[in-house]
C-alpha cells in the first residue's frame, strides 16, 4: 500500500470518527451578530434621546480607573455646557470598549452601563433616530493619525457608509467636527493666538510653580514618522517654544515622535545649560493611562538604545534620574501623573473647540445612490 493510500485511509477514518462525535464543536452560529449589535447601539440611543441635537466625544479610550473618572467628568462638563444636546462618549479602541462594557457595572442594578461603542456605531444610530444636528468632538491632543480616524468616521457617516440611512436625512442633517486640543499653532508664538498658545497659557497657570523650581517636562504621544500624515508633530515643538517664552525651564518631548524623544529633550536641556536640579514630568495626554504610568513614571530601566536613538524601555523617571540621562533630581516625587482632561481649564479648551465647530456646518454629504 502506498503512503498515499495509507493517508487516505487514515483521513477517512478520522472523518468518520469526527463525524460520529459531538457536533457542537464548531461553536455557536454568530452570523447575525453584526445587525444585532448595531441594533443595541440604536436602542441605547433611542432610550437616551431627549433632544434633537447630539454631541459625540471621541477618545481613544483607556482601561485605567483614573482615566474613567476623567471621562465621566468630561461628559458631565459637556452636559452642563450644552444643555440642549444629548452627550455621548465613544472609544475608538476595541479593547477599552470591551473591558468597559464587561465590568460589574453591567450587573449592578441601577448602576451605569459603560457602553463606549465605536464612533461609527454611534453615528449610525444617530442617523437612524435622525438627530438634526450632530457634533463630533475629538478628544485628541494633536491632529494626528488618531484624529484622522475620527474624521473618517464622520465622513463615512455623511456618505452613508452602512448604506442604511435615508439620503434625504443625510442631505439635511447638520454635522460639525470639533478639532483636537492643539489643532492650530504657529512656529512663532508671537504671530497671534492659536490653540498652542492658549494651551501654553493654561499649562503655565497650572505648572508655573514647578517650572520655577526646576525643569518642567511634558510627555506627549506623538506620531511615529510614517504616520505623521497631518504634520501634527510640529505642535509639540510649537508648544515648547510658546512655553519657553514664559519660562525657559519648559520642555515638550514625546513617546513616538522622531527626534523628540526623551533623549532629545535631554540634549535640549543641556544645550540650554540645564544640567542639574529638579526635573518634573507630566503627561501631555487627555488622560493618564499606560503611557503616563509606564513610559513616564514607571520603573522600566532597560538601558538599550534602539535604532532611532531612544532608550525605549527606560521610563522618563528612571532616565532623568540616572547619570546616563543627566543625573537630575527626578523621582516618584517629581512625577505628576494627571491627564489634561482632569484640569477644568484645559477641558474648557476642548469645549471651546466644540462651540467653534458648531458655528460651521460641514458639507460632506455625497449620495451613494448616484442621485447627486
Amino acid at each position, binding site marked *: 500500500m502506498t503512503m498515499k493510500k495509507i493517508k487516505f485511509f*487514515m483521513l477517512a477514518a478520522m472523518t468518520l470518527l469526527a463525524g460520529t462525535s459531538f457536533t457542537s464543536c464548531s461553536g455557536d452560529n454568530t452570523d447575525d451578530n453584526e445587525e444585532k449589535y448595531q441594533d443595541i447601539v440604536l436602542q441605547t440611543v433611542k432610550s437616551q434621546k431627549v433632544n434633537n441635537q447630539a454631541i459625540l466625544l471621541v477618545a481613544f479610550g483607556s482601561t485605567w480607573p483614573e482615566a474613567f473618572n476623567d471621562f465621566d467628568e468630561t461628559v458631565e462638563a459637556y452636559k452642563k455646557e450644552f444643555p440642549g444636546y444629548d452627550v455621548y462618549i465613544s472609544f475608538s479602541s476595541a479593547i477599552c470598549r470591551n473591558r468597559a462594557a464587561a465590568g460589574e457595572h453591567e450587573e449592578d442594578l441601577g448602576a451605569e452601563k459603560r457602553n463606549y461603542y465605536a464612533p461609527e456605531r454611534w453615528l449610525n444610530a444617530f442617523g437612524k433616530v435622525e438627530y438634526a444636528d450632530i457634533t463630533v468632538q475629538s478628544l485628541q491632543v494633536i491632529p494626528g*493619525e488618531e484624529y484622522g480616524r475620527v474624521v473618517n468616521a464622520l465622513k463615512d457617516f455623511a456618505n452613508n457608509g452602512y448604506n442604511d440611512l435615508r439620503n434625504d436625512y443625510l442631505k439635511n442633517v447638520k454635522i460639525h467636527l470639533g478639532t483636537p486640543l492643539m489643532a492650530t499653532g504657529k512656529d512663532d508664538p508671537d504671530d497671534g493666538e492659536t490653540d498652542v498658545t492658549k494651551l501654553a497659557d493654561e499649562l503655565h497657570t497650572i505648572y508655573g510653580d514647578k517650572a520655577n523650581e526646576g525643569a518642567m517636562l511634558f510627555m506627549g504621544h506623538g506620531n511615529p514618522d510614517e504616520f505623521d500624515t497631518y504634520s501634527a508633530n510640529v505642535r509639540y515643538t510649537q508648544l515648547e517654544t510658546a512655553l519657553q517664552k514664559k519660562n525657559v525651564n519648559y520642555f515638550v518631548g514625546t513617546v513616538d515622535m522622531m527626534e523628540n524623544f526623551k533623549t532629545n529633550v535631554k540634549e535640549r536641556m543641556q544645550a540650554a545649560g540645564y544640567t542639574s536640579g529638579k526635573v518634573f514630568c507630566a503627561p501631555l495626554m487627555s488622560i493618564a493611562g499606560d503611557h503616563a504610568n509606564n513610559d513616564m513614571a514607571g520603573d522600566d530601566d532597560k538601558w538599550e538604545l534602539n535604532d532611532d536613538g531612544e532608550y525605549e524601555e527606560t521610563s522618563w523617571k528612571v532616565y532623568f534620574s540616572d547619570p546616563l540621562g543627566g543625573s537630575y533630581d527626578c523621582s516618584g516625587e517629581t512625577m505628576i501623573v494627571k491627564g489634561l482632561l482632569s484640569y477644568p481649564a484645559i477641558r474648557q479648551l476642548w469645549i471651546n473647540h466644540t462651540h467653534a465647530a458648531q458655528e460651521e456646518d460641514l458639507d460632506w454629504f455625497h449620495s451613494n445612490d448616484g442621485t447627486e
Partner: protein
Amino acid sequence: MRQTLLYVITFCFPLLLLGQTEGNETAMKEVVVTATGTSHTLKDVPVQTEVISRKMLDNFGGKSIEEILGSLTASFAFNEGDMGSQMQLNGLGNSYILVMVDGKRLHGDVGGENDLSLIDPRNIEKIEIVKGASSALYGSDAIAGVINIITKKHNEGLLVENSTTLGSYGDVRQHNGLAVSYGKLSSYTNFHLQRTDGWQNTSKEHTSTFETPITDSRSMTVNPKTNWKLAERLTWQIFPGIELYGEGSYHQRGIFRPQGKYAKYDVTYYDMRYQNASAAVGGKWTMGKNLLTLDIDWNKHAYFHEFTSIATTEGIDKNGNFVLEYPYFPGQRVLQSDQQRFTAHLKGVFHLPYHHLLSAGMEYRYDWLKAPTSIEGREANDNTEALYAQDEWQTRLGKSVQWHVNGGLRLIRNQQFGWHLSPKVSSMLSLGDFRLRATWSQGFKTPTLKEQRYRYVREMTQIILFLGNRSLKPQKSNYFSLGAEYTIAGLTLSVTGYYNRLDDMIALVTIPRSEAPSQYIQQYGETLNKVRQYKNMERAKTYGVDATARYVLREWTFGAGYSYLDTQAEVYNETTHSLDKVVIDGMAHHKGNVYVTWNHRFGRGYTLGAGVYGRMSSKRFYQINGDGKGYQIWRLSTTHDLGTTGKFFWRLEAGIDNIFNYVDRTDHGLHLGTTTPGTTVYGTLTIRFRHGKNLKNNYKFNLKNNDNEED
C-alpha cells in the same frame, strides 16, 4: 527555622535507622516501561526512572496530577492559572514535557500547556517519570522528560466503585468506575468529575505608584472551574495471545472568571470552555516472549471563548470574511482552536540471541488545526512518519557485575521539515548494590502548527499582536546525565547530575511593528503596542542535580527528594541585536520533598495509613513582574480501610493540606511562588463492590501489578 530542622531530621532519619532494618526491596522490584519501552524492574532499568507507586498514591490521596507530581517528587513545579498548570520539569515548561497516558501522548494544548484534568487521579496505577530527552523512542516534545501515567487495569468479574472527595473551597472530586468481564470480553467505564469554587489569596492589585491603590479587586488566584470526563474501554481476548481493544472518551471543562469593576484589572469579557474527545482501536499479539502492538487513535481538543458580555473582537462575518472587530454576545461560544490528531503506531519487541532485546516500530501522525480567528489560513495540517529501533544488550562482567547498554535511533520524516535522526544511548553498570547510569540523548521537536501560523491580537493592558513564523526550524537538544544509585536492604539512594542544552529554542520575541501584516497596521495603527513573533532566537541550558532517598522499615516508609537547578537562556535582543542572558521563568535553585508514611493493620476490619508530606521550594525567578517567594508546605493524609462487608469494600480518607497555613499574598499581577489558598481539608469516601473472580489474563506485556487491591 523550626520547619527547616524538621526537614533535616526527616531527611536524615532513614540513615540513622540503617542497619536495623529487615530487607524490603519491593520498591525496587517495581516494573517500569517508560524509559526503554520494554519491561524492567526499577533496579534493572538502564535509564534512571522515578516511580510514584500505587501505594504512594493511595497513601497520599492527591486530588489532581498537579498535586501528586508537585508533592511526591522534587523536580516538578506548578503554578496553576487560567492558562493551564504551568508545569515545569527541571526548569523546562510543559511544551518540552511529554505527558503520556498508558504510553499514548496526551493530546491538546492551550499555549503549550496540556490539560491535566483529562486524567482521573483515582484511576492511576502508577506514574513513571523519565527525565531528559526521549525523542528516540517517543518523538517530538520529549526534551525535558516524559511522564507516563499508567492507569489501573481491571479484570474483575464485576466491579463498581465510587470515590467522592469533598474539600475546602467547594472542591468536589468524583471517580466512578464500572468494570465488567464476561468471558473473553471486558469493559471498563470511567466517569470523573472535578470542580472548585476557586479562591482569592489577595484582593490587592499590583498597581502603578500613581494610581489609587486597588484593594477590592475580584481577580482570583485560581478561578472557579469544572470538568468531567466519560471514558469507555472494551477489550476482547480474541485468541490466547491476541487481545483487541476499543476505547473512547468525552471531556468538558469550563473556567469561569468573576467580574470586577476595574477595567484594567479584574474585568474580562469571556470565560474559557474546552471539549476533548478521543477514540482508539488496537491490539496486542504476544508470541512467547515477543510482542506486537498496534494502536490507532484519534483525538480532538477544542477550545472556546464563551462571551460573558458584549464585545467586539476578531471574527468571521456572515460573508465569510475575517474581520478584526466582530461583535459577540453573552452566552455565545466561539471556537478558538480545534486541534485534531490521528496516529497509527505499530511496535514490536523481540528477544534476539546473545541477550539482545530489540524494540522497533513505525508511527504515523497527522495533525489538523482549525482556528478561524487566530491562525493564518484558518486551518492547517502537518504529518510525520517515523521509524525507530532500539537495542538493549546486557552482559555479566563478573560476579555481581553487570553491564547494560541501550541504544536507540528514530528516523522521522516530517511533511515540512524533512528527515531527521534522533539518537539515544544509555548504559548502566551494576556493581552489587551500586548502579551507575549514564545517558546521552538528543531531543527533537518540530514547531507546532500554532507556533507556525498564529495570527491574533490579545488585548491585555496593551494591544499585542502575536504572530507565528513559517520559517521556524525544529528545536534540538542534547541531554547528558550521570547517576549513581545504591540499594541496600530497605534503603535506596540515588543521585543524578544532568545537563540539557537546547538549540534553536523557539520563543516569542518582540519584533518591529512595521513587520506586522498591513491589515493589523491599518486597523490598530500606532495603538498596536507590540508585535511578538515566534522565533528560533534563543539557546538555553538547564543543569542540576537530583537526589532521592527512600527507606522502608516494616510499616514505615521514609522518602526525600532534592533538586538543584540552574538555567540560562539567551534571548535575542531586537534593539541591540545581541543575545541577553536571562533565567528561564519560574526557575528555583532548590526544591525538595519529604514524606513519612505508616500503615498498620488493626485486625481484619481496619487498616490505618498515615502520612506526613512536605514540599518546599526556594525563590522562583522571573524576568518581569517580580520573583515568586520560596515556600514550604506540609500535609497530613490519613487512610482508613474499613474492610469488607460482603462484597462491599469501604475506605475513608481524610487529610489536611498546608497545615501551617502558608499563603502567598503577593499582589495580584505579580508572580506567586505557589497558588495554594492556605490550609485546606478534604475527606474521601470510597465504596467498591466486587463480584466474581479475577480473570486470568494471558497478556501481561508490562507486567503491571494487576492484583493491586489490598482488600
